[in-house]
């Protein structure tokens, strides 16, 4: 998609759009030709109003802010159902509406082809439904839409045609009506997948982690308020919720990145809230951070040093004052082999791995620390189906050995597939609790409204 929108120059081949041939696209040419892109991470000026953001993205921003430009914007809003107040400031809008602003920007510029990159990653199931209604309407009005997603259900739900890319190649392309989910999944991975996700063993009785009334101490993100739960041996506790409802604060408190403002954390019979990340790892709590690029890895550093980054608290790699470089290299090679990170050695730089392999490495590193409790935050975000299956299997295996997992994930399907119990986080509080096998609609509604149905 970076090639289509002109961010990256193709090494060979050409792009044909609307009868014209382009050897290489530029973002300017793409916009002029009528290609619009909605990025996964929005590119909006938060202090500006909706209308001003739309104007900024248009070819002639002065014209866009005149009465006639504004009435054109209102017409587009009415025709497409992208309901949003043009005078509202973007910073006051929830994520779902910000996405509408991005789409409006593209349409206002006269785009006839929309490329949407993982548009549903940040939406509740209800918001996703609304988005799809808008997209169907746009399709009816003659707009072409390319939807990039790793959620198979969605792809089949809304698309007319489905194309599967694997390692840069097109491996499947056919009308959506003619394929099954399983066929697409196996095309994405290149082999048949386990059908029903990992088999979860029954949890034991021993309580590994007891969280009592923890709250945030402050900070600029959504705080958590008075959260309590227990985690038993062999259990995966899923924490569902729309992004921005306190997941980051909760993960940071559980992992020891920030101290809680109040409450207690018992790991076994030990109070761990005064401990930092390092102390908790020594006590048996390991942490898979939510953003592998900025939180879990040093991109410019080789893998053996990244191994050290996650494991230094255990002291296994120190020889007096010096580092045991040979030992580190060996452990890194073992992790690379065991987790199937192809084409890497201990000297490979973290940034030259694909996202999936980066995540495999982080999971290998944190599981290799021999933890009893794992706190995993969005452990499969942005990964392909094969890597997702792999990470899920490792987490399930961990439970099979008597460990336990707190799975904090904004991907509802992941939480449903992998959890023994589900807590729904809404505005920093636990809004509802569901057992395994809960209906997707019920959990989704609790995510959106904060009320158990």
């Amino acid at each position, binding site marked *: 998609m970076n090639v289509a929108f002109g961010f990256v120059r193709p090494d060979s081949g050409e792009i044909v759009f609307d009868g014209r041939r382009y050897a290489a696209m530029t973002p300017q040419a793409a916009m002029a030709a009528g290609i619009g892109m909605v*990025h996964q991470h929005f590119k909006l000026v938060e202090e500006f109003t909706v209308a001003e953001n739309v104007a900024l993205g248009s070819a002639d921003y002065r014209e866009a802010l005149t009465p006639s430009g504004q009435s054109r914007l209102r017409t587009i809003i009415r025709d497409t159902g992208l309901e949003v107040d043009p005078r509202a400031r973007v910073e006051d809008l929830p994520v779902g509406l910000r996405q509408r602003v991005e789409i409006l920007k593209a349409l206002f510029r006269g785009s006839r082809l929309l490329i949407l990159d993982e548009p549903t990653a940040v939406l509740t199931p209800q918001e996703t439904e609304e988005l799809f209604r808008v997209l169907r309407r746009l399709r009816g009005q003659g707009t072409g839409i390319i939807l990039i997603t790793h959620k198979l259900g969605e792809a089949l739900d809304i698309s007319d045609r489905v194309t599967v890319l694997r390692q840069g190649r097109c491996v499947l392309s056919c009308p959506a009506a003619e394929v099954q989910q399983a066929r697409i999944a196996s095309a994405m991975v290149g082999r048949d997948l386990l059908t029903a996700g990992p088999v979860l063993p029954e949890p034991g009785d021993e309580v590994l982690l007891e969280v009592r009334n923890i709250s945030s101490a402050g900070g600029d993100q959504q705080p958590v308020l008075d959260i309590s739960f227990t985690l038993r041996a062999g259990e995966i506790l899923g924490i569902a919720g729309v992004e921005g409802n306190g997941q980051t604060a909760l993960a940071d408190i559980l992992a020891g*990145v920030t101290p809680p403002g109040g409450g207690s954390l018992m790991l076994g019979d030990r109070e761990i809230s005064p401990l930092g990340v390092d102390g908790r790892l020594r006590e048996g709590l390991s942490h898979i951070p939510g953003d592998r690029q900025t939180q879990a890895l*040093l991109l410019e550093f080789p893998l053996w040093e990244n191994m050290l980054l996650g494991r*230094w608290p255990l002291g296994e790699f120190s020889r007096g004052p010096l580092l045991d470089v040979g030992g580190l290299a060996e452990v890194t090679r073992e992790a690379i082999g065991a987790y199937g990170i192809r084409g890497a050695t201990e000297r490979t730089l973290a940034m030259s791995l694909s996202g999936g392999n980066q995540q495999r490495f982080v999971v290998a590193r944190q599981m290799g620390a021999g933890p009893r409790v794992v706190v995993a935050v969005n452990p499969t975000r*942005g990964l392909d189906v094969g890597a997702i299956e792999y990470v899920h299997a490792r987490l399930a295996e961990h439970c099979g050995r008597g460990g336990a997992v707190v799975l904090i994930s904004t991907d509802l399907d992941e939480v449903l597939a992998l959890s023994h119990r589900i807590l729904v986080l809404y505005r920093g509080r636990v809004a509802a609790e569901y057992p395994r096998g809960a209906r997707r609609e019920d959990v989704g509604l609790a995510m959106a409204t904060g009320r158990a149905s």
Partner: protein
Amino acid sequence: MNGRLGQLAGTLAFPLAGLALIAGIILLGGKSPALGLAALVSGSLGGAFALAETAIRACPLLLAGLGVAVAFRAGVWNIGAEGQIYFGALAVVALAPVLGLLPAAAAVPAAFLVAAAAGGFWAWVPAFLRTRRGVQEVISTIMLNFIAIQLVSWCVHGPLKESSGQFPYSDEIPASLMLPRLLPPTRLHLGVLFAVAAAAVVWVFLFRTLRGFQLRAVGASPEAAAHAGIPTERSVWEAMAVSGALAGLAGAVQLMGVSHILFEKFSPGYGYTAIAAALLGGLHPVGVALASGLLGALEAGASAMQREAGISTVIVYLVQGVIILSVAHQAARRRAATEAIRQRGAQEV
């Protein structure tokens, strides 16, 4: 492999481009470039004397440059090497009457310790201001340079004025504090070997100890370091302390090996040139050593050029400036490339 070769070519390009630039400027000034360059080269590389001059000029640059490299690796922008150099030298001169009582074998190490502590203290101030008060160290370290320089100026006009009370400089330090000459009659002194050893120690610290790794991790990504439980504040303190101590040692070595007295303008900007040496050397101890050698050679050659061809030394500082700018440019481009990879990673599906 390609990257390594490219890097090597880039490193070699600097001195060559620098020489060409010097030749061009001399030509503009209406003098003979051939004569000037000949003096520049023979004054820095031609024979034992010239090489010794290059080495003793490189010596404070290397020590202070290592300090700058440690700080920058940790993401701490210590621009205060100049002030820390003055502080190291000042402490040795102030305590010289006491240190002089020690036997020579103990006096020199004791003086080094005093200088390292003094430089470290002068770096402690901005570390304190940053971690406790949120003051940008870029600003505070520059400001503290002026204070240190003025403090030394006041001292040599006042309490530390030489015994006869006529001239604004300190008494000569006791003979037991003077670093032995290695190759008389050249001025090559023991401090040069000390600086090279320091480079080796800094390499081991940065790349083979846990503390050094943690410091680099904090510099590369404070967020990742925090998520790995590395105390980021402690790394700032440590980096600043090590950085200041090395700069303090640079001052002591210059005092004990070359000048033997303390005076106003004791350092002709070694602390700033050290930043250039650190950046030019890619913040790597071996690179800093090579860059210090290059910059030392330029300074030694510049003196010869002025003596023999009547060409102002200012030209060399101009060339240093150009080198610093192009290094900064390269560093910015590298950062941009890394950022691009990060972005691509984020967009990967």
